[in-house]
């Protein structure tokens, strides 16, 4: 599903975020990406969504070579990915409902069909009652769940989550991990980054650990 071959990422100015990283993720796997802050977790996730390009090496996502993707094909790659951002990237000029509606509008879905999907996604993360509210009134955990709802409304086959439990207390964090597990059960491929030891402890599955931009064996 996702394949990294000898990926290096050097930022302008010479900082090397990733050094010779190679791994493979099979379809339906749930992978945990750990490492201290600055180890290159965010960079790795950004490379998959082609938000950043690798300095060398190749990345293949769903059979498509992302490292050399044309900018015209980029939107269609991203529609297959559900992205959950560290900083949520929620739009505060519209309701909770409209935030989740955005990906479907972008894909040109039928309006009535997409309204149902949005409500289903909001129900899944427990925000259905807040759908008409402005997201500014949501707590940190609720904003995170809104971000998840927006990422899954398009029913992507791959879900990438960057520090989804970053600033949350324990209960919220296990809430969100529960949501991720339910996606895993229906066959979604998940890649979740976190430096949170607690979350890691209750998680069973493969772990990719980064240290100073290198993958620990």
């Amino acid at each position: 599903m996702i394949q990294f071959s000898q990926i290096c990422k050097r930022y302008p100015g010479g900082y090397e975020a990733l050094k010779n990283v190679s791994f493979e993720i099979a379809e339906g796997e749930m992978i945990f990406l750990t490492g201290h802050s600055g180890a290159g977790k965010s960079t790795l996730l950004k490379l998959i969504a082609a938000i950043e390009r690798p300095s060398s090496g190749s990345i293949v996502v769903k059979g498509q070579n992302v490292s050399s993707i044309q900018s015209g094909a980029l939107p269609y790659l991203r529609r297959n990915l559900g992205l959950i951002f560290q900083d949520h990237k929620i739009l505060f000029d519209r309701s909770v409902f409209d935030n989740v509606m955005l990906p479907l509008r972008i894909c040109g879905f039928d309006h009535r069909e997409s309204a149902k999907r949005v409500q289903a996604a909001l129900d899944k993360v427990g925000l259905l009652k807040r759908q008409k509210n402005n997201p500014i009134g949501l707590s940190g955990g609720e904003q995170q769940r809104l971000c998840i709802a927006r990422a899954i409304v398009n029913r992507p086959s791959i879900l990438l989550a960057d520090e989804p439990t970053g600033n949350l207390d324990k209960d919220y964090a296990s809430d969100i991990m529960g949501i991720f597990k339910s996606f895993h059960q229906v066959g979604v491929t998940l890649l979740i980054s976190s430096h949170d030891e607690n979350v890691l402890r209750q998680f069973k599955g493969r772990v990719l650990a980064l240290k100073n931009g290198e993958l620990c064996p």
Partner: protein
Amino acid sequence: MKNWLVSHTHVLLFTLRRFLTTPLSSLLNILVIGIALSLPAGMYLMLKSVQSLAEQAVGTPQISIFLSMDASNDEVAHIGKQLKQHASINQVKFVPRDQALEQLKQTTGLADVIGGLAQNPLPDAYVTYPKISDAQALEGLRDEFKKWPKIEYVQLDSAWARKLGAMLKFGLLAVLILAVLLSFALIAITFNTIRLQILTQREEIEVSKLIGATNAFIRRPFLYFGLLQGLLGGATAWFIITISLRLLNNSLSELTHLYASSFTLHLPSIGDSSILLLLSAYLGWLGAWLSVAQHLWQIEPR
């Protein structure tokens, strides 16, 4: 196809809502565009009206022949006979000097001044309507009459119309230059409006790109906005022109009445109106397109 229509309608409604969220600045923008367009378009229409008047005058040429003051009655009659028999002349009208003076008194209201004159300063005159309308042939005819005895002055009445025509051409060129300059102003106004919009929508554009929006999808609302703003500006210009021309026609009718003429300024025809609206919409779209092309690539998600 249906989805495509729905998404375009959605964008259109969204654009209208964007107009309404900043009503004052939208209104001012539209007004500025309307005024900028109404100047050259209104002047063009006025010149066109005058031009059609001039063409009418050229269409029925007239040669006035003023006789010498010392021409005897026989000589006057002889000239009249000659004119009537002339192959190129259609119709001849004799204007005796007494009648000319009477007319002058009545139409100009200078009765007091004219009454004070010791003798009638006006000569007898013939007004002739030639069969030909070719400008060079008319001039030839004028020169021919000039050589006849007892003829003081021959005036080709279409000459002023041709001079006017030349001046109108000059005027139309000036209006065209003005139109081109103000079109650039319109493009600049839209360019800047869209630039500000892109800056305020930065976050939405960034998120949309991350979620998989194509460039066309991101561009669309801005292009619609430019198009709509241009169109509304064009409509404003149309209203400004129509109302102004109606007002001018009202006061013009008093003036032309004095000259026993029925000259009116033409209101914009359906053709003129559609050209105005299409052009303004296109210029708005172009300004938006340039702005989007210039600014959108700068917003890349990090």
